[in-house]
Structure formats: C-alpha cells, structure tokens
C-alpha cells in the first residue's frame, strides 16, 4: 500500500459513497416525514437504470405498463375512499383523476418515445420521469391507509413492497443484467489517479441534489411543511398540513433520488433486476449511522461506508460485505449508550 494505491482506493470509495449518500438521504427523508423504513429504495435504483437500458434497445420498458396498472389501482382505492367519506361522485372522481393524470401522461410519452431511439439524455430524463411518478402511487397503494401505524407495521409493509418490486423487476427486465453507456466518456489523469467523466457527474449530481434539498427545506413552504410533519405529526396536522399529501410528496422525492442514483451507477457496473437491494442497504447503513435523522450525518457516513468498502475489498475481498455491515454494530452501541429517550415517540 503506497500513496498512489491509497488515493485510487479513496477515489473509488468516494464515487460509490456518493451514490450511497443519495440513497441514505432518501431513506432519512422518508423516515423523518412518514416513519417508514423504506427498504424498496434500492428497487428504484434498479428500475431507473434498467428502464434506461430498455429504452436503449428501442422497446417500451415493462415499468411503463406497471405504472399504468399501479395508477389504476391507486385511482380505484382513492375513488372508493372518497366516496365512502363524502358520498358524492364528483369529488371522488376528481381525487382519483388527480392520481392518474401524471402517470398516464408520462406513460404515453414513454410509449411514443421508445421506438424513436432519442438521444441518451432524453431517454435518461424520461426514465427518471417514469420511475419518479411511481413514488406517490406506491405510497397511495401500500402505505397511505396505514399511515398512523407503528414503524414496525410500516417496516413489514416495506419488506412486502420490496419483494413485489423485485419480482416484477425480474418479469420486466429478465434475469440478465444490463450496462448503460456513459454520459461523459472522458478520463482525466491526475498523478496516479484516473478520474472518469462519470465519476465527476456522480459527484456533481450528489452535491447539486443536496443543495437543492437544503434550499427546498429551508426556503419553500412545502419543504417547511414537511419539516413540520417530521418534528410533530399531530401538531402539523392541526396547522392544516395534510400528512397524506406529505407522504406522497416524500415518496416522489425518494423515487426521484433512486432513479437518479440508478442512472449514475448504470454506466459503471452491470445492473440486475435485484441489484438495488444491496446498494440500498448500504445507503441504509449510512442512514442508520446518522440515527435516521441527520442529513449531513448520512452524507458523511455514506462516504465513509464507500471508502471502508474500497479498502476492505483491497485487503480482504472475501470479507468485504461482512466488514461493511458489521460497521453498524459499534454505531448502534454508541447510539444506545448516548441516546436520551424522549417521551414524545412519533
């Protein structure tokens, strides 16, 4: 181990860590607002990358059909629920239509665009759009009616959603993996380190997203409303903040972040229908290390996970996964020793 090897490993670790950071942020975000431990975060990563891969072949990705199906189910649930509470047809149809409009628009666009073989970046934007509109629908179908349940119930639902999405991924994308073309295929050499254009894009996207999230939560009314829900759910509802709308908004953001991460790792590795889970799990380790509460904490922890993973695979590649996931033990120990229990459990 000399300086050049160490610097190559660090760079590799930070590049992966940047993706874990995005997922860690999304997991923290979803947990603080909705109390959902969002296991399926990784599935959005795989869906994002694979949807783009299928667009590349000029076919309509299966995710589009699932999107339409999911929208129909969500709309039906909404229709029934509003009808039950209000007994009037018009508001019920309006509520249902609100859920359907965007998915249908995106699907139609995707079905039209798929055979045209548009430039890579257009397809990338389209893939992100397809996966992003999954967010509110997944929330509506799986979580909304359980929103006041305990985190444990929501966690169990998450496991179910994870398995459902993985299985559907196998149906849509097949068992073999795909690799996407790089968005920026250049390489810079700085001393021993070789920096690829893709790595630069990954860093830039991570930083941009963090800044955007910060601006959103600090400056916009909706962002502040989400923060209010996160701090005190009942209080926020008394102030007229809808927890259901917040949940849908949060999952939209999570799906967006997931799809974006998928595009970022797609060109550097082969993505399979079930690749998302372990990638998401590493984001989860980072999020837990940050106590599922702190964004900067999750960012730093994720970069740490990436670097430790890189050095771990260099020194003891057979035990790499063990090293990464064992990291969580000392963190949990420290946290349990230093935590002060509050009476207000969300």
């Amino acid at each position, binding site marked *: 181990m000399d300086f050049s090897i160490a610097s*190559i*490993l660090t760079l590799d670790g930070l590049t992966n860590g940047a993706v874990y950071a995005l997922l860690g942020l999304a997991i923290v975000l979803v947990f603080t607002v909705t109390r959902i431990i969002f296991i399926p975060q990784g599935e959005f990563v795989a869906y994002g990358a694979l949807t783009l891969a299928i667009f590349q072949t000029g076919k309509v990705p299966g995710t589009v059909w699932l999107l339409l199906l999911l929208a129909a189910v969500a709309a039906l649930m909404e229709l029934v629920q509003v009808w039950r509470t209000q007994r009037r047809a018009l508001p019920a149809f309006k509520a249902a239509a609100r859920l359907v409009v965007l998915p249908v628009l995106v699907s139609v666009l995707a079905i039209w665009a798929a055979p045209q073989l548009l430039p890579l970046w257009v397809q990338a934007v389209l893939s992100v759009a397809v996966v992003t509109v999954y967010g509110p629908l997944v929330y509506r179908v799986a979580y909304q009616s359980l929103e006041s349940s305990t985190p444990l119930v929501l966690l169990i639902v998450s496991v179910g959603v994870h398995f459902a999405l993985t299985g559907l991924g*196998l149906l849509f994308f097949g*068992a073999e993996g795909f690799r996407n073309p790089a968005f920026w295929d250049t390489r810079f050499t700085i001393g021993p380190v070789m920096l690829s254009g893709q790595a630069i894009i990954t860093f830039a996207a991570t930083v941009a997203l963090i800044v955007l999230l910060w601006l959103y939560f600090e400056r916009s009314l909706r962002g502040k409303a989400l923060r209010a829900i996160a701090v005190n759910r009942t209080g926020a509802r008394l102030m007229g903040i809808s927890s259901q709308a917040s949940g849908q908004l949060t999952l939209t953001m999570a799906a967006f972040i997931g799809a974006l991460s998928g595009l970022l790792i797609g060109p550097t*590795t*082969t993505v*399979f229908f079930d*690749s998302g889970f372990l990638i998401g799990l590493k984001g989860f380790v980072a999020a837990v290390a940050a106590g599922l509460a702190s964004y900067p904490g999750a960012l730093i922890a994720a970069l740490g996970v990436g670097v430790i993973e890189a050095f771990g695979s260099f020194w003891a*590649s057979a035990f*790499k996964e063990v090293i990464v996931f064992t990291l969580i033990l000392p963190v949990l120990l420290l946290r349990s020793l230093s935590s002060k229990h509050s009476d207000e459990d969300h």
Partner: protein
Amino acid sequence: MKAVKTLIAVAVTALASTAALADINVGVILSLTGPGSGLGIPMQNQFKLFPQTIAGEKVNLIILDDASDPGKGAANARRLVTEDKVDLIIGSCLTPVAAAITPVATEAKTVQLAASPVGVPPGADQWMFRLPQGNDVMAHAMVEHMKKQGVKTIGFLGYTDAYGELWLKAITPLAEKAGMKVVAAERFARTDTSVTPQALKLTAANPDAMLVVASGSGAAMPHKAIVERGYKGKIYQTHAAATPDLVRIGGKDVEGSFVVSGPAVIAEQLPDNHPSKKLAIDFVTQYEKLVGQGQRNQFAGHSYDAAIALNKAVPIALKKGKPGTPEFRAGLRDAFETMGRTVFAHGVMNWTKDDHWGYTNETGVMLKVVDGKFKVE
C-alpha cells in the same frame, strides 16, 4: 339405489384412472426467481420440449421454483417425494440448492439429477448424478490451454460463493502440476458496484493470466475492471460465462479473452468427428427456434441432456418395476450407473458406480472472443 350405483361408478372410474396415473412423474426444481434465475429460466424453456412419453410411458413434469434459496429447494424436494411421489428429481441449477436437495432425495431413495456441479463427497452422492461438467474437467481444458500459451502465474478473481471456491479448489492443484502458480486470489459479489480495489491488487501482482470466475452478464464487470486498470495479459473466463451476455455487456473489453465451455453452445464450430456434434446442433436448433436466434445457453443444454439420460435409463428400469414404485426408482438409479457411455449434447458421459460426475477430461472446449463472437481455439 341410484346413489349406490353412482358411487360404484365413481369408484370404478377412480380406480381406472389411478391405474392410468402410473405415469413417470419427474419433479423439477429450478431457480426461476432470485439471483439464479438467469440459469433456471433457460432450463425451464428447454423443458417445454421435454418428451411427452418415454418407452411408451407418459411423462409428467412437475416444475417448482426454489427462489434460489436452499431451504426452499429442500422443502420442494420434500413435497415432491411425499405428495407427488416422483420417480426422479431434476435440479437445481444452483450448487447450494442442489446440495440441499441431495439429503432429501437420498432419504426417499429417489434419484436426483443435479444441474449444477455439486461437491458432495463420494458415498453421500449415492442417489445423485450430475449433469454438468465438474469444475476440474473444465479447469483441465483451461490449464492445458494456459500451458500452451506459456502462462506461469495466474491471478484469480471469483465470486465469494461456492462457485468461486470450487473453481479455486479445482484449478490450484492442476496448475501446480503443470508448473504454474496462483499468485493472487481475490473475491467479489455479484451485487458489487465496483471491483476496482480487487483489480488494483491483482494487477499489482502482475500475473501472466487472470481467471475471472463469474456467471453470465455478471462476468463482464470484473473483466472490464481488470482491463481498465491497464492489464495487458490474457484473461480467462469459466463456462458459466460462455453466454452472449458476456460479449453484450463487455463489448470491446472482452475481445481476445479465452472462455472455456461445454460443446453444446458452440455446436456449429465443433469438428465433424466430435461425438456430440449431431446432438449439440439438434439442441441449438430446437432451442433457438423456441426462444430466439443467438439465445443458446449452457444450462438449457443440461435440460436437453436430462431427456437423453432418461430415454436410455427408463427402458432398463422398467424391467425392475412399474413407475411410482420403489423398485422402479432403484432400477433407475442402477440404470444410470450401468448404462455406460452415453453421448450428450455436452460431451460424452459415463456414470459408473464410483463416479457420479461422468465426464472425461476431453469435454471442455476453449473459445476465444473474436469480433464479438466465440471462436473455437
């Protein structure tokens, strides 16, 4: 009175149908979901072409999914032997799952045709026969090729699972015998997003050849990582990587690398005197007619070979007893052991009492990737 008549009629029909139900029941356990689905799904495709009757007896296939999970595989096997009373179990395509099925099949005295190279010691595999080539048979072909290329040192980059371990165990002694040495052994997982650290360590050792042990499209990522680290030596891939996916994902980076393979997937390029050529071509035409051009697959070939094995063994076993009886099952086992030299699409098989692997060292074929196609070396 009428009711009694009906009852009798029903009873008679039921009896008659049980007699007709004495078909050959074959239980198939495959990984149709989970990480092993890339191997299980092609096998399932080929089973659609499985013969309807063998030696005049109707054949029923009962296909179950093991979700790439050994526990589920064992539970499936338990169901097949107790509920469905199968005469034979085929599966699984994953080594750990197949290993979990073996004790259940042995206990029920039912033959298991494993579709993966299971490393159960001789004696414990009394009721288990393997359809694929053992790793040492493939490693033999590879080491022979390395010897010709003048390779002295080998770097190993393989899966952290049984497949990687078995390959390392198979190639190390063979290489040593040929005067070569495995100088560095690194591991990675299928779900890893980067193998740069491992590639760094391997290229630092600078061996004459690298061996990548991975399957299907998963074999391309480590290969690319080694090339990206500026490695200029020879790169070898195993038979699980001998699929079009390697070239599809790997692109120009896998150009010029060597892949060991069973003969089935390169049917057309086999020399005319190769014993498997006719069957291999038959398999490839059948399979690609069903699934699509260029979709040939090592594991689908094992399904094809299973039918050949049964076609030969069932007539012998039928002399011992009717399908569905313990005598038939025992007869099937003895038939596999005594049926002798049998030509498969994947090579020449000869199971004996002491050897349930069966393939000879001449089975492995070395291929080279030239212009995105596999060429026989």
